């Protein structure tokens, strides 16, 4: 059994992480999101809530990163998977630094180009997936979509 740290911000990112849940359901999973009460809606017990952040909120991003470090070290996953956004990227960076398998699934919302976090994730993720076939290239694969 693998230990999977599955991260998504609240809202659409989380919805997509839940739609893909069958991919990691049989493993030991710790979920991380940004909105209280969200994991309970999906009957998830093993989870942590971190503060949300985006590129306009540097202090919150730092706080979120510290929270993520604590969660990461305590859980010590084999795999980090995220559907975005910023907190997921922070988790991937930690995963890469600790030689864990890292997977970025770019949100289906990004049909014209990869999200900013998705572009940055290329430096840290072993697998970068887009959900739009036309966006696949040498560094980004298309392997399906939630729709």
């Amino acid at each position: 059994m693998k230990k999977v740290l599955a991260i998504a911000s609240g809202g659409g990112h989380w919805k997509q992480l839940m739609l893909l849940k069958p991919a990691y359901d049989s493993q030991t999973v710790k979920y991380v999101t940004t909105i209280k009460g969200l994991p309970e809606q999906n009957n998830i017990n093993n989870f942590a809530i971190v503060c949300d952040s985006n590129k306009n909120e540097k202090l919150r991003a730092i706080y979120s990163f510290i929270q993520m470090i604590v969660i990461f070290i305590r859980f010590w996953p084999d795999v980090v998977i995220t559907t975005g956004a910023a907190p997921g990227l922070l988790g991937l960076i930690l995963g890469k630094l600790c030689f864990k398998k890292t997977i970025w699934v770019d949100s289906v919302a990004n049909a014209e180009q990869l999200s900013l976090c998705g572009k940055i994730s290329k430096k840290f993720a072993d697998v970068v997936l887009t959900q739009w076939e036309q966006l696949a290239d040498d560094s980004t694969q298309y392997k399906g979509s939630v729709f």
Partner: protein
Amino acid sequence: MKKPLIFVTTGTQLPFDRLITQINNWASKDKQVNVIAQTANSNGDYHSIKTVDFLTPSEYDEYTSEATVIVGHAGMGTIITGFEKNKPLILMARKFQFGEHRNDHQQSTTSKFDGVKGVYIANDEQELQALLSRYDQLEPASDESSPNRNKLIDYLSTVIENC
């Protein structure tokens, strides 16, 4: 008799007053509906609809289940909710030029979903008003089994299993 519920959401990150103002204007003329809007810290003053900055996840679940139609920004959370709950979706994209988002990705989302069953795109205020006026005749979106999703799940489970 209970009035039909129109559920409106601008997501969890940013307000979207252009959308809420239009809905408030519409609701002020048609009193036969209840409108509840999650407005994400909007500073607007809306008298004809009920607004809440942020609903709890369980409130969100309750209102979206009860709603006759879901009206929202073109965020994936809103769209996936409509598909999960089998509700008609009226979507209006946030525009970067009006400071409504950090870029224009919601416009590409609406163009990708244009024509999908149960998804109705309002490109401007007039189209939004026209869709609202026939809110009770719209078809629901449906979350049919998705071969693309199964493909993605299979791929991810293989990657995780083999790491």
